[in-house]
């Protein structure tokens, strides 16, 4: 699969309610091997919500732009790969007991 097939897909919970779209995909880069393992997907209310990624970084300048973009990206969250039940061409389905994590980068 290629990344752009996953981006923008609608995300549904276990009973089929739409809870957002895939805005980004998070990876962990192994220090030694350099391999990039998928950790989870970032979900936002709309695909453009993560524009410039201010909600995930510690950068807060210029303050007005940062605050505005964080406000636009409110309600975004991270779901770990284990909480993804299936990926279909028309959407990503999550497990019943999926957990929402903060989208902030460590």
């Amino acid at each position: 699969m290629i990344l752009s097939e996953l981006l923008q897909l609608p995300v549904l919970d276990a009973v089929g309610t739409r809870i957002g779209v895939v805005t980004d995909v998070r990876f962990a880069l192994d220090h030694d091997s350099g391999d990039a393992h998928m950790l989870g997907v970032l979900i936002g209310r709309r695909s453009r919500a993560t524009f410039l990624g201010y909600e995930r970084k510690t950068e807060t300048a210029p303050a007005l732009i940062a605050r505005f973009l964080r406000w636009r990206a409110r309600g975004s969250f991270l779901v770990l790969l284990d909480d993804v039940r299936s990926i279909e061409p028309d959407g990503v389905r999550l497990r019943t007991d999926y957990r929402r994590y903060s989208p902030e980068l460590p």
Partner: protein
Amino acid sequence: MKAVLGLALGVLTAIGGFVDIGDLVTSSVVGSRFGLTLAWVIIIGVVGICLFAQMSGRVAAISGRATFEIIRERLGARVGFANLVASFLINLMTLTAEVGGIALSLQLATSLQPTLWIPVAAIAVWLVIWRVKFSILENVTGLLGLALIVFAVAVFLLHPDWQSLGGQLLLQSPSQGSETPATYWYFAIALFGSAMTPYEVFFFSSGAVEEHWTRKDLGQSRVNVLVGFPLGALLSIAISVTAAIVLLPHQIQVTSLSQVLLPVAQAGGTIAAIVALLGFVAATFGAALETTLSSGYSLAQYFGWSWGKFRRPAKAARFHLTMIICLVVGAGVLLTGVDPVQITEYSVVFSAIALPLTYLPILIVANDRDYMGDKVNGRVTNFFGLVFLVIIVIASVAAIPLMIISAAGS
């Protein structure tokens, strides 16, 4: 001498923004119709371009990234592409106009038809880009462009009524209300847009990469910006002032490049006119180099191609092919007989898209520690950066309606 040559990048960049063929005529038109009542726009414009050119130069020196790479990285493929299309069209239209401008200037000097000069001008621009080192290119055109200082000298030789000029600066309209507000604001936006035209930051930041600037060169970048752009603005205002002194009282409307020369010829005779003509040739040639290179820079940086004059052409093949095609298209368009000066007027429309989409990513990346480390923007820079973004957006939104209402200032 070395210190003077070190400023060439800033001077050459500013020539493209303030005294290229479109601006040579527009400055004179504005002076002959509005006196100095629009000089404040150029002053605001020069502050804005200094601010953002310095940011783009700093980003290039610290991170090695030129402006269009940043635009693609921050805005993504789609929005970046919208900017690429708009910016590329501005580049192409301006480069076409500049090649025409070189031909017009050479026509004034030799009275040979411009159609004969168009292919010569286009080939000369290509040869310089193909064979001449970046540092020589910027030093020669930058220094020769300074011949336009003759316009500033002419202002003093004309012994103007300083009080009246000062009054015009303070917005006391010299004309008897023959110009409508829409026309006034159309020219205000055209002057502002041309002062901040995006190819200046493409060229300045890419030039910084061409010259391998690093953290050590931040001081040089700042001096380049603070000398180059105000000098460009000063030349532009000087052209306006000479037109305001000589042409405005006689209600002479500037429609051609030769009329821009009239006040200088009146003040300093043939020699001054010859110096001014030399300045025209150098400035239009410099602007042609700047816009041709910028078209290559922006395309190559968006698509990730190898670029730069510090590489031999075969090591940046797509970059060089882009510029060859642009020059062929530009020369071809000119041979159909269009007026080069009019072409630049329509690039204002595309500036409406390109200006905000160019300056926002620069401001964002200049704040990003991944790129800039400890050299991120300070609070004051960010404050003014935001103020100018707001002005840019307002100007962008207003540009097209004003162009229609005022029928492009006619």
